[in-house]
């Protein structure tokens, strides 16, 4: 469980970026942190693995206060995948890149070999095992960065803008993969501006604006609240907007994804017949 209490954070010489966050993320939850640019989303998740320590308040990961632990220790349980893969790739081959963190955490060579092979297979990267990560495409590099964190099997996984630079099919695969991870009992936290992606996944949404939580609830409720969305410089997903526009026809509110919309439309049409 990740718990933030009265969390405030300010970068040196700047005003507070986080201005009193109270948030509990339970084990096995799927949460999307959303909000306008500069709302404090990345700053918030950086406090979860101790990269940033609160200026006021506390952050506890599975009961451990982040002030009383180290980034290396916390990272073993909290895997953070950064937005730009180029900020972390450095090895000669993809295989070595994946082994890097396992060596840091002190795993034996047998385990490293086994885990690297498994994660390469899972993320469809086996054919790139001996390639340099720098010659891969943007989307592939992003997958390598994801694999480089998943390889040590952290309990909580945080993905910062995972959909940027991914084509539609890759986004689909990513969504399935995230849902699968969550089904395995992992806590998954994503930071994203991609309302369409969130509408398809339907996680719990934590909406930030100017360093404060302004909304927290199921995706259907948050992504249908125009006032809340405007406050965070967001709009409804396209399906949600369409269903809202067609509300006069008796279509229900709060429908945000294609499959639910299809069901709702068919029900309405059948009723009218």
């Amino acid at each position, binding site marked *: 469980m990740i718990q933030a209490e009265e969390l405030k954070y300010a970068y040196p010489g700047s005003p507070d970026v986080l201005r009193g966050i109270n948030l509990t993320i339970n084990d096995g939850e799927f949460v999307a942190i959303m909000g306008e640019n500069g709302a404090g989303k990345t700053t918030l998740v950086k406090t979860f693995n101790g990269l940033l320590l609160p200026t006021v308040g506390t952050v506890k990961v599975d009961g451990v206060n982040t002030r009383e632990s180290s980034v290396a220790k916390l990272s073993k349980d909290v895997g953070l995948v950064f937005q*730009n893969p*180029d900020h*972390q790739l450095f090895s000669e081959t993809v295989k070595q890149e994946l082994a890097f963190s396992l060596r840091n955490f002190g795993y034996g060579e047998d385990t490293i070999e086994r885990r690297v092979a498994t994660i390469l297979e899972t993320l469809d990267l086996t054919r790139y095992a001996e390639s340099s990560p720098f010659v891969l495409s943007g989307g592939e590099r992003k997958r390598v960065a994801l694999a480089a*964190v998943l390889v040590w099997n952290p309990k909580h996984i945080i993905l910062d803008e995972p959909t940027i630079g991914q084509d539609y099919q890759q986004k689909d695969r990513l969504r399935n993969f995230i849902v699968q991870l969550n089904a395995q009992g992992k806590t998954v936290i994503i930071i994203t501006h991609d309302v369409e992606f969130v509408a398809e996944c339907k996680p719990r949404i934590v909406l930030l604006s100017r360093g404060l939580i302004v909304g927290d609830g199921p995706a259907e409720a948050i992504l249908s609240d125009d006032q809340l969305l405007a406050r965070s410089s967001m709009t409804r997903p396209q399906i949600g907007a369409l269903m809202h526009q067609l509300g006069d026809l008796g279509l229900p509110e709060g429908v945000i994804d294609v499959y639910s919309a299809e069901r709702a439309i068919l029900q309405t049409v059948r009723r009218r017949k």
Partner: protein
Amino acid sequence: MSLKVFDGFKFAKLPTSIHMMDPRAKFVMTIGIFSAALLFSNIYALIVIFLVQLPIVYAARTWKKWAASMRAGLFLAVLIFVMNFVFGSTFVFSAAMTLRFVSLMSAFSIFFMTTSPDDLGLALEQARVPYTLSFTFTTAVRLVPTMALDAQTVIDAQRSRGLELDRGNLVKRIRNYIPILIPLIVSAIRRSIELAEALESRGFGASPNRQPLIVLRMKTTDYLVVALTFFMIGVAVYVYLYVPLPTPDIAITMPKIFPWL
């Protein structure tokens, strides 16, 4: 790893006499301090060169940033002292070399903290440096804070993967920086290629005859600063050639651990 050292090279506009000086006059002053620091290896002379800079920092109202950059450079300063001392230099000479480094760092820190990259570009252009070169130089200066931010992100990303920069002996600690340096170099190269393409797409270099909107003009105080700098350099050369400077009598040396040195 502290990246505060970059703050000491970041320009911030302030209404002080140092900020408003002509960049060319400031550059001559910086080169004057630079030359004097390289000329002397006597500790008293280097103390004077260092102290001369303090009133300038005071007048520029950049104490905090200057102090932060000095603190951030502490590691290198200690390294210079230790390396000199371990490899057979006396205590006083090692301290002098450290002070030389600190003086050089301070001089360039003052210059970059008080000179905007735009003024620097104008000064280079008016000194008939080709525009492409002056643009390259000012862009590099402008990108220093961006690179510092990148470096911090890379450090955060690698620490999140269990990298502990301060773990291990000296060799291990130096090797710990490889996962930081490679992504940083790669992203710098990628950024420079993207920048070059963006510039070319926007017609950079299409017109060979550029007309600057602002023309820098030296004021009386600027000429005075240049004259004073040349005078001080003359005094420094005279002292170096004709005045025997005392050396403190501290005979501490490291026992010879490398007999071939």
